[in-house]
């Protein structure tokens, strides 16, 4: 019986006889695997990117906004527009176990002016809990404290983008700015956070004491003095998120005296579930791309089958001779099968390297994280080997069942 290493050796020898042809035959698989690897790497990169930016909103976070959700949109009725109050915030913090902080926020907009430069930015009136809820830190200077937030001292903390635009020289702490003609002092600058999942610049923000924004900036569109536009609820543990979401919903329904069966006048967004949705979308997208590239892998396999069939015809005499000299049909089957597998596996390995290079090039260009999972690399190699088995089987079978007498007679 032939030794396995001799069988492998003879398969590789036949491929080396015609290196150009072997390379061109493998090219289909090379392109197929390269595109599958590049596409899945890009998909995984996109997923990582989304996850990162969703995580940057804050971890273990529930965001509660006024207005009911029905299907895709938020439905406002006059009474639901200002449905959330400071008392609601306090009740959530006090009555629901597992809540680390419940931070109120009043959103507003306004023209920020400093040293003759204008900048239009998002303005939020908050308390110091806001930073805890959103996992945010102070880059320089300080945050206003609880007392200042309640009293409404005219001081502000700027996001990095606002600083970049208003104080290009960098030093913003201690400077004076004006919002809607009122004077404020900058006491701190927020650490840089980057883009959100939807592409918004999270650093384009100004935060000020809640009472200040209520009294002097948000105006009549901000509602009564005790209404809030957003409540950020941070739980102590990620596992509590779903339970706290349910309890917050129940508590607020009870506080707002909503009848059973009636619609909520608020919406609780769970960042974990939003992240899940995004993950599903990007994953589906990745699979789609991989499937499309997979088609080229099949085309590569057909290329291998075609050349293997030609090779069997060309080498009919050799096959007959090998059989006369003692090769069993199984040996011939194995030799041609191995040749096909060697072609497709080599194609797979080369394609893997190319795929990673392509993914690396693209991610470097669009500043994505490069994610090549060992699992997808392994799968690509196994699939390309399987392509060899699948498309090499028929030519190998044809070779194996050649009649040695007929084969030797052939010119």
């Amino acid at each position, binding site marked *: 019986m032939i030794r396995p290493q001799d069988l492998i050796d003879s398969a590789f020898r036949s491929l080396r006889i015609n290196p150009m042809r072997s390379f061109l035959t493998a090219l289909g698989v090379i392109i197929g695997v390269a595109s599958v690897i590049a596409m899945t790497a890009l998909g995984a990169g996109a997923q990582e990117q989304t996850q990162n930016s969703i995580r940057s909103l804050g971890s273990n976070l529930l965001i509660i906004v006024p207005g009911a959700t029905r299907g895709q949109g938020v439905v406002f009725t006059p009474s639901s527009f200002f449905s959330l109050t400071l008392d609601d915030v306090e009740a959530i913090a006090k009555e629901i176990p597992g809540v680390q902080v419940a931070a109120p926020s009043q959103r507003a907009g306004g023209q920020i002016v400093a040293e003759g430069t204008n900048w239009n930015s998002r303005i939020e009136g908050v308390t110091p809990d806001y930073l805890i809820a959103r996992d945010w830190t102070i880059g320089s200077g300080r945050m206003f404290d609880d007392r200042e937030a309640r009293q409404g001292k005219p001081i502000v903390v700027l996001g990095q983008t606002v600083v970049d635009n208003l104080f290009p020289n960098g030093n913003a702490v201690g400077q004076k700015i004006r919002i809607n003609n009122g004077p404020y002092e900058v006491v701190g600058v927020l650490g840089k956070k980057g883009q959100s999942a939807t592409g918004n610049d999270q650093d384009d923000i100004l935060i000020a004491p809640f009472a200040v924004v209520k009294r002097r900036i948000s105006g009549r569109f901000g509602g009564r003095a005790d209404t809030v536009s957003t409540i950020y609820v941070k739980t102590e543990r990620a596992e509590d998120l779903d339970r706290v979401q349910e309890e917050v919903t129940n508590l607020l329904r009870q506080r707002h005296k909503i009848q059973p069966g009636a619609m909520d006048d608020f919406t609780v967004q769970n960042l974990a579930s939003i992240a899940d949705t995004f993950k599903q979308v990007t994953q589906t997208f990745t699979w789609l791309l991989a499937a499309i590239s997979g088609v080229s892998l099949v085309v590569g396999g057909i290329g291998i089958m075609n050349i293997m069939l030609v090779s069997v015809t060309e080498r009919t005499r050799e096959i007959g001779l090998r059989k006369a000299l003692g090769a*069993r049909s199984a*040996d011939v089957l194995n030799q041609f099968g191995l040749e096909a597998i060697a072609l497709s596996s080599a194609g797979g390995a080369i394609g893997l390297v190319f795929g990673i290079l392509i993914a690396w090039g693209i991610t470097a260009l669009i500043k994505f994280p490069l994610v090549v999972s060992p699992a997808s690399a392994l799968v690509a190699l196994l699939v390309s080997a399987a392509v060899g088995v699948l498309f090499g089987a028929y030519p190998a079978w044809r070779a194996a069942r050649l009649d040695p007498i007929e084969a*030797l007679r052939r010119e």
Partner: protein
Amino acid sequence: MAALITARMLAKIYRMGEERVRALDGVDFDIDEGEFAAIVGPSGSGKSTLMNLIGGLDRASDGVLTIAGGTLAKMNDATLAAFRNKRIGFVFQSFNLLPRLSALENVELPMIYAGVPPAKRRKRAAELLAQVGLGERGRHRPTQLSGGQQQRVAIARALSCSPSLLLADEPTGALDTKTGTEILGLFKQLNRDGVTIVIVTHDPGVAANAQRVIEMRDGRIVADRRTETR
């Protein structure tokens, strides 16, 4: 001496459409160990069919064929391959060397299928090439060798697994007379060393080198002569 090949009522029938062609029509003979026999006859006489049956390349339609104690009809594909590998050494008219392999590698080929380890088969191949007078040509490709040299490589290859029988099909058919005589000389030499040889040929001049000539016509043996020309 014991009979190496025993054929009894051996028949091979081909179907050509509606017609049944009796390529072999009940053949009986024995060939003993150490014999040098020639099977002769015009084309269509059934000599090639007989050679294919003896070589284990084809199966008989009827009758019994026993070679070196093995009954060929009872062998399956894998055993028949092993039989060809170990018992039969083929020599072809057109040499049938693999052009991409060196002379040494061509000689090694049957030993690869016998599972002989590389070092051992390389050593044996070199010895065999030396035996057929090509000791220094081991690294040459078949295309770099003359016809006579190629046939010597083929003979070395046929001997590599120490077969019971050297089976040659018109071994001088592609060679000029002088080279053909040399090759036949090599066969005689090998036969003197104890190798059993069966040559299939249409050429009476070639057959004259054998000790025994089996003449065939229309699928039957018409004459079986022993000569003493050694």
